[in-house]
């Protein structure tokens, strides 16, 4: 629990850090950097983001809570195009994330200017990861409190996804998720096996999984942002066209309701069977 402890003019929580968590340049005796862990906590309670690599392309998606009824829909952007064939989605502290997107755009532009070829997803992800890691070594900086997924489609390597966390770790994935609903999302993605489906088919599953992740907070209004790089989008990173997205979301909700009903029904049947078991003589 939290215990207030007065320390001179400072009032601080006495938590797990206990003195080794004041700046990011301090290692704890257990070998952890607490500031980086706190940065990861910032992303754990924020909107779910996820990505899937498909047979012919790659998908990105995020669910965002609508903060105010008066906000123009689509103004709180989370998914951005960095180059024609690379897209990024952010979660956690959004201003930090948007700063990283600007940095990614600069890196891509300078790579293209110097080498004449568009930057590949892996090279960009490595550079952004190094950039984020820089903020975990110096005293005067704090880590970026955001998780990023970079989706790319290169001529040579094909579709790819990279997930970067606040510590600067960057891995390539076939399917990944971050944010509040990440456990549900990861289980669903594993069950799905998106590598054998086309982007068009996977888009429906993406909408469904994002709706599923949101189930605990049914009362709060939310919006989906989805994007893809696939033949339907002309091999270019593009937000899902509004009509397609609406149709997919409607279908996804229907399917979820049916599945929920089926669950309830099977529960009822189980209970009836148990009752019958006990009442039959």
């Amino acid at each position, binding site marked *: 629990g939290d215990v207030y402890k007065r320390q001179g003019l400072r009032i601080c929580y006495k938590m797990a850090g206990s003195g080794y968590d004041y700046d990011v340049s301090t290692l704890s005796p257990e070998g952890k950097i607490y500031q980086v862990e706190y940065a990861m906590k910032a992303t754990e309670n924020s909107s779910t983001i996820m990505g899937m690599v498909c047979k012919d392309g790659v998908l990105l998606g995020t669910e965002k809570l609508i903060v105010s009824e008066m906000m123009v829909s689509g103004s709180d952007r989370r998914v951005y195009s960095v180059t024609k064939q690379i897209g990024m989605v952010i979660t956690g502290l959004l201003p930090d994330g948007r700063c990283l997107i600007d940095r990614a755009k600069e890196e891509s532009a300078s790579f293209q200017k*110097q*080498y*004449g*070829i568009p930057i*590949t997803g*892996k*090279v960009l992800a490595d550079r952004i990861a190094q950039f984020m890691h820089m903020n975990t070594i110096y005293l005067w900086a704090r880590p970026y409190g955001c998780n990023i997924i970079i989706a790319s489609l290169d*001529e*040579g390597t094909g579709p790819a996804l990279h997930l970067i966390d606040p510590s600067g770790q960057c891995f390539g994935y076939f399917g990944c998720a971050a944010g509040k609903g990440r456990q549900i999302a990861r289980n669903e993605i594993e069950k799905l096996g998106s590598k054998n489906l086309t982007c068009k088919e996977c888009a429906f599953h993406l909408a469904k999984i994002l709706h599923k992740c949101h189930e605990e907070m049914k009362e709060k209004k939310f919006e989906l942002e989805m994007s893809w790089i696939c033949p339907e989008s002309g091999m270019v990173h593009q937000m899902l066209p509004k009509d397609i997205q609406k149709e997919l979301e409607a279908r996804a909700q229907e399917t979820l309701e049916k599945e929920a009903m089926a669950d309830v029904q099977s529960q009822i049947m189980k209970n009836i069977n148990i009752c019958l078991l006990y009442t039959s003589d």
Partner: protein
Amino acid sequence: RRPPRSTPKPSSAASDVYKRQVHGDYLIDMESIDWSQPIRDGTTIMAVVYDGGVMLGADSRTTGGALIYNRVSDKIEPIHKRIFCLRSGASAHTQKIAQLCRLYIGQLGSELEETPPVYSAAKIIQSFIYNYKSFLSAAMICAGWDPIKGPQIYTIPLGGTLVRENIATGGSGSAYMSGFCDTHYKAGMTRKECRDFMIQSISLAMFRDSSSGGIIRLLDITKDGVSREYISHDQLPLKQNNYSQSCLLYTSDAADEGLGVDLGGR
């Protein structure tokens, strides 16, 4: 080029020993050599895409005014495993540009973890030649093979344009072989045809251009590897001191002993 001037007899005083140099049977007066001329690869360079790869060829003469600094120089510079460039113009400039290109392409290769595109090497060379064109005198040809586009050649002449071509020539000697190249080049040659074509063209250029000469260096780049060879002086189709040769046949199988033309047969 400056006209030859009559040289005064070298002084025979013992203190002037630095002014005399003995080369074989000849005494050279070091003071009569014009040291102010920059060292240039006067040159004939050429690259041709054939069916299966790209072949690069160059002469081997490096001059500084009327003095030949190196008669067996190598104008074919490696940039990466399957990317090479040919240098013409001021030697210092082109060597530096090639060195910097090698550095950047090495970095790109390790970042991408695969064969870097030839276009990137050409782009780097272009950025130097274009941005520093008022200081540099360099014209280069960048050629190679990469898995996405196959064999490619890019020319970057003095002003810094970047042009992709299937046959590229450069240097002062290229003017003398342009007619021959236009007549006899055809797309999709075999390796042997390409090699013979290049040997003929470059030796024609070396025959007429005073800043090209020496041996012909050839480099062949394919998917599977890179191989180098040189055609030494006595194997050239046109021997440079033999003014009696006035007729050339461009046939790859002819053993034209009657005309004294030896195509090497390699």
